[in-house]
């Protein structure tokens, strides 16, 4: 569907604009050098690094539990899944099995995070396409989740809510009741958002057939998460390589067929419902018991290396840990989903219009904190 650029470039009036890093639609500090022929995009080159903090280098100076707060700041819209990926990697390296209650709490925190992250995606994506109201509707629900996080660990954004070997705290009194209240009303809110957008003529005009990527291409670009599933590839780390007892809960992997912005939208909307389904199962069979396994005071994984990945809201988030047997990682490499999904942007936007550019940035759901690290 992407219209081909047919005019020869040399006799056209090209215009090069710097899109960002301070631009309302770039979700942070993404900068794009966009070459335009009128409104049509000839080339878009992402320039990243404006939020580089050297997180991976900082990891090499900290103990494993000290590194957890730094993962909060990578994908700052999904701190819980970042924590989950890091502690999961270290636990796998050390061969620790966390208690079932801790695993279920982790699943709940992670699924809440998926909902919270997707609400931000929906809010900003709709705002970029010009629909202002869903932004506030979505943020209202996110607020409720943040309240639940606050009740659990005291933080709302940078949670730091997991430790190597389990969970730092048990659930506070009444928390499960509050979560149940939330998931009872949340599907109605999702239906409300869908009423505003899903069959909206303009919304469909703006998203159907925009930023199409075929399944083989999506795999070759290394896309993960909703951008991959939107192209029809049934790949979800939670199902493919289950961690933290995800094999005990039932859920479906929603997939699209066309690989366009609209399908990715539908996939994420369905993921809201699947997350609620997982949360409900977790609440129903939350086991009793300790939340922390027996781990040494100083975490010293044996010499070796491990790659562990989780299904973050943006896609596969992996941590590659190399340990030299000391309390400090020798190397801690992150595979951020946003970084790899962003790679496909130039291919996705070629030949599209400027208005599609912001729609495609929105649909990839990138977070610059994770890209630049």
């Amino acid at each position, binding site marked *: 569907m992407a219209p081909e650029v047919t005019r020869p470039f040399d006799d056209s009036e090209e215009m090069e604009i710097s899109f960002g890093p301070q631009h309302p639609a770039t979700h942070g500090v993404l900068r794009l050098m966009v070459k335009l022929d009128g409104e049509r995009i000839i080339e878009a080159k992402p320039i990243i690094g404006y939020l580089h903090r050297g997180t991976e280098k900082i990891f090499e100076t900290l103990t494993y539990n000290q590194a957890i707060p730094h993962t909060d700041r990578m994908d700052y819209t999904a701190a819980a899944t970042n924590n989950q990926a890091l502690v999961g990697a270290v636990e796998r390296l050390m061969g620790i099995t966390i208690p079932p209650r801790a695993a279920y709490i982790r699943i709940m925190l992670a699924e809440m995070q998926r909902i919270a992250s997707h609400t931000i995606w929906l809010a900003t994506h*709709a705002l970029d*396409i*010009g*629909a202002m*109201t869903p932004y506030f509707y979505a943020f209202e629900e996110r607020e409720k989740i943040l309240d639940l996080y606050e009740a659990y660990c005291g933080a709302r954004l940078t949670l730091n809510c997991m430790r190597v070997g389990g969970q730092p705290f048990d659930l506070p009194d009444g928390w499960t009741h509050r979560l149940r209240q939330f998931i009872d009303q949340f599907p109605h809110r999702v239906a409300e958002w869908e009423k505003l957008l899903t069959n909206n003529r303009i919304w469909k005009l703006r998203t159907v057939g925009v930023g199409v990527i075929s399944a083989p291409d999506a795999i070759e670009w290394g896309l993960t998460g909703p951008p991959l599933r939107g192209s029809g590839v049934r790949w979800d780390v939670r199902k493919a390589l289950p961690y933290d007892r995800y094999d005990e809960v039932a859920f479906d992997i929603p997939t699209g067929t066309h690989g366009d912005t609209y399908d990715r939208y539908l996939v994420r909307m369905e993921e809201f419902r699947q997350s609620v389904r997982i949360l409900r199962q977790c609440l129903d069979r939350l086991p009793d018991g300790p939340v922390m396994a027996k781990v040494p005071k100083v975490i010293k994984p044996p010499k070796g290396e491990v790659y562990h990945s989780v299904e973050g809201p943006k896609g596969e988030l992996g941590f590659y840990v190399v340990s030299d047997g000391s309390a400090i990682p020798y190397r801690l490499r992150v595979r951020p989903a946003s970084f790899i999904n962003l790679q496909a942007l130039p291919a996705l936007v070629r030949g599209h*219009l*400027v*208005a599609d550019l912001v729609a495609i940035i929105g649909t990839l759901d990138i977070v610059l904190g994770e890209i630049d690290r």
Partner: protein
Amino acid sequence: MDNVWIAYLLVPFVKILIILLAVILIAAYMSFAERRIVAFMQIRLGPNRVWPRGWLQPIADALKLLVKEDIVPARAEKFIYMLAPALMIIPSLVVFSVIPFAPATTLFGVFKQPIEPYLADLNVGVLFVLGVSSVGIYGVILGGWSSNNKFSLMGALRSAAQLISYEVPMGLAVVAVLLMSGTLSLVGIIEAQRSQGVWYIFPGIVAFFLYLACGVAETNRNPFDLPEAESELVAGYHTEYSGMKFAFYFLAEYANMTVISCMITVLFFGGWLPPFPNWLAAAWSSPALAWIPPFAWFAVKVAFFLFCYIWFRGTFPRYRFDQLMHLGWKVFIPVSLANVMVVALLVLLVGGGK
């Protein structure tokens, strides 16, 4: 009143002053209304701090914009850059000179002779409105081009294309009304609706929706707000403007919205006439409601369409540029042409016009 000075200088001058102030105030308070109403739609509060309950917010905004630094970007075309906001706001204010707000009145007996509360009743009033409001395009194009900013330029180009495209179906929608009324005078159109006993919305429902959609497009409002699409072009053609120059663009936009709402009211909803003239007489135009002044009817109708503008903003996503052009040229123009034919046939069969 036989004094020439009073009749030709003082009275028009007072009228101009009142209309100008009223329009500027309405435009300013439209921004306030918009912020509050959209906020209500979006489950938030909106400006409610400036005493009382935010009602002085537009005044505070105006004061802020007045004292703000007036920035002219380096290498901008200075003269044109200064000229553009004026070109934008003057037409949008001038248009109000022909808008008939209410019929001639003695203002509850204050005046001996009835005076007309509008400035002029041109026999080509509709043409005047269409023509003068088109001049505003120059403000957009020149402002976008002269600020030496690529985003502004793109916004200006989009705006120029959009305004020109949507003026055609808009004009054709008006033609349908003119066929029915047989006059180009805005007062005449209202009188025609009274004498024919029907608001033109009923025979001209298609024309009404065309005019509404084109009117929204003409004023660069959601869902046709591409020229100032925040997420794409930062602020479109007025990206570089600050202070009072920005305020002029802002005021002009809201004044234009008011113009369009007034025009819809006059063309399709009988202007100051109560619902419904000589028709369904039982309910609404009964003597019981005769005490309501005509201006109130006019104001209520205009307010409703202004509310519609805000409502659209709270509801719709934004069109893409090519889709906008497609809609304008391939949908609206054929439909409006067909509508002219149908209305002409209707006028032939049923009568109407003069």
